[in-house]
């Protein structure tokens, strides 16, 4: 029997209301299609974090979003224009998270939650730690040069839908 594949794509501007609408749509779609819905909020949370980043760093420009579930695998990709500095910081964060084992992830999460810092960009790198902790198998950040010191930052997260095989593998080799 062929594996069921569901894809949702979006291209355009991003706002709080649109993120909320996309999350509700994804949540409803997952709940309708998954026999076991306990992980729905975690899976939708992956998309939400990537969309948060795109809205925060995208300077009001258009984004591309793709959500694909196929069999037991979920892949979410968000592509947005960003300044190079922010994109590199994002990639450095993912590379750092990739080096942590499960105990390291928990310890770092604990430290960041307790440190009382809240940087101007929001979660102080908590998002990727949270995703790795919540069963992401892989997170990739690809950076392509654009004009005027800007770049196209493409963030992809891969996760198993039922939460099995959820060990985080870290970032794929950089492709810049």
């Amino acid at each position, binding site marked *: 029997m062929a594996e069921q594949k569901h894809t949702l794509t979006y291209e355009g501007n991003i706002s709080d209301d649109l993120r909320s609408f996309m999350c509700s749509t994804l949540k409803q779609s997952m709940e309708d299609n998954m026999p076991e819905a306990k992980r729905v909020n975690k899976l939708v*949370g992956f998309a939400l974090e990537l969309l948060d980043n795109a809205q925060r760093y995208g300077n009001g420009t258009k984004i591309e979003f793709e959500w694909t579930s196929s069999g037991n695998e979920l892949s979410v990709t968000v592509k947005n224009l960003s300044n190079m500095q922010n994109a590199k910081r994002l990639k450095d964060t993912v590379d750092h998270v990739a080096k942590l084992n499960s105990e390291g992830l928990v310890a770092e999460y604990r430290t960041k939650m307790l440190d009382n810092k809240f940087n101007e960009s929001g979660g102080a790198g908590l998002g990727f730690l949270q995703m790795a902790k919540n069963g992401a198998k892989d997170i990739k950040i690809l950076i392509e040069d654009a004009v005027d010191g800007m770049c196209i930052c493409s963030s992809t997260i891969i996760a198993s839908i039922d939460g099995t095989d959820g060990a985080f593998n870290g970032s794929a080799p950089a492709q810049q």
Partner: protein
Amino acid sequence: MNLKIEPSQSSPLVDFSVLRVGQHIQGVSIPVDAFEFYKQIHDFLDANESKLLPNSEFHFDLKYFNTSSSKALFNLLQRIQKQIKEGRELKVVWYFSDDDDFMLESGEEFEQLLDASFEFRKN
């Protein structure tokens, strides 16, 4: 002396009052700048914390939240827990749904990080 923020697509209802026991945060919390949103609650507490009823209950009834909100919620819980450790009989009530791992695990994680004791309620 109350704080009422109506819910939006990306932020929860906030309903705090010094005149009653129950203080409520309810709905979805996914603002990009959660710090700015939750600052309103901190500002209210800065001015009114000592006036809250001694047995005040803080009800966190959220459907889901983003990481930025997670840190902001934690900061708020930290503040409440500090008051409890100083002897006030405040209570944190954390709501979760049976069919959602995320809310229950998040509440348990916050409870553990704060060395606190929440009341967990199914909704």
